[in-house]
C-alpha cells in the first residue's frame, strides 16, 4: 500500500497548498459564495493534514472520529452561511461584499 512515513511530508505540502488556495480566495474575491468556497478549500487542507498526522502516529481511528466531528461542524457552518447569503441577496440584490455597507456606524 502507501509508504505513509515518507508520504506524510508530501501530504503536508498538499495540505499547505490547499490552505494557501483557500486563503487566496478569501483575500482576493468579492463574491460571497466564492468566499464560502474558499473556506471549503481550507477545510479540505485541514482534513488532509489531520488524517496524515493521525495515520503517521498510529492513531487513525481517533483521527477519523475527529475528522467526522470536523465535517459536521463544517456542514452546519456552511448551511448557516448560505442561509445568510440568501437573506443578504434578498435585501441588497447583490452578492458583492463591498455593497454590504449598511452596518457602517
Amino acid at each position, binding site marked *: *500500500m*502507501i509508504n*505513509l*512515513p515518507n*508520504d*506524510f*511530508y*508530501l*501530504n503536508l505540502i*498538499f495540505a*499547505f*497548498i*490547499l490552505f*494557501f*488556495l*483557500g486563503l*487566496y*480566495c478569501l483575500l482576493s*474575491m*468579492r*463574491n460571497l*459564495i*466564492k468566499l*464560502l*468556497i474558499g473556506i*471549503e*478549500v481550507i477545510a*479540505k487542507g485541514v*482534513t488532509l493534514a489531520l*488524517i496524515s498526522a*493521525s*495515520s*503517521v502516529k*498510529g492513531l*487513525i*481511528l*481517533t*483521527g*477519523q*472520529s*475527529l*475528522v*467526522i*466531528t470536523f*465535517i*459536521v*461542524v*463544517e*456542514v*452546519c*457552518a*456552511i*448551511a448557516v452561511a*448560505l442561509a445568510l*447569503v*440568501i*437573506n443578504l*441577496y434578498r435585501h441588497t440584490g*447583490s*452578492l458583492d461584499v463591498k455593497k454590504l455597507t449598511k452596518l457602517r456606524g
Partner: protein
Amino acid sequence: MQELYLISLCALAFFSVLAVLLKDLLKAALSLMAASVFLAVVLFFMKAYYAGVFEISVVAGLITVLFVSTIGLTRGDDFKESKLPVYIFPLFFIWFIIIDILIMYLLLSKMPPLTKWVAEPGKFGNVFWQKRTFDLLAQIGIIFAGVFSVLALFRKRDKND
C-alpha cells in the same frame, strides 16, 4: 498504487484551483465536489475509510446540493469578479510552492525519522462512541444550533419587521 495516490493528490489540488479561479459559480461548485471526491480517494489510500465515506456523502453530496441551491436562488445577480486575482494567481502560487517545498525540506532534516505505519488497536465504533463521547454531545449541540439558525433566518416576517 503509489502513482494513483500521487495522481489523486494532484487532482485534488487541480480541482481546488479550478473551484477558486472559475468565474461561473456553478462550475466552481462542481469543481469543489470533484476535489472532495479525490480527497476521499486519498483518505481511502490512508486507510481512513469512515472519514472517506463521510467526505463523499456529506461534503461532496450535501454541501454541493446546498451550494447549487443557493446559486440557483441568487441567479439574478450579474456581478462579476475582477480579472486581477486570476492574472496574478500564478505568480503567488509558484512563489508559495517554492517556499512550501523549501520549508518541508528544512523540516525533513530536523525532524526525527518517523516509524512505520502501526494500526490503532480497537474498533472504530469503540473509539467513536466511547472515547470521543464528548465530541458527539458537542456535535448534537452544533446540529441543533445550525437547524435553529436556518429556521430563524427563513422565518416568515411579521408586519412589524
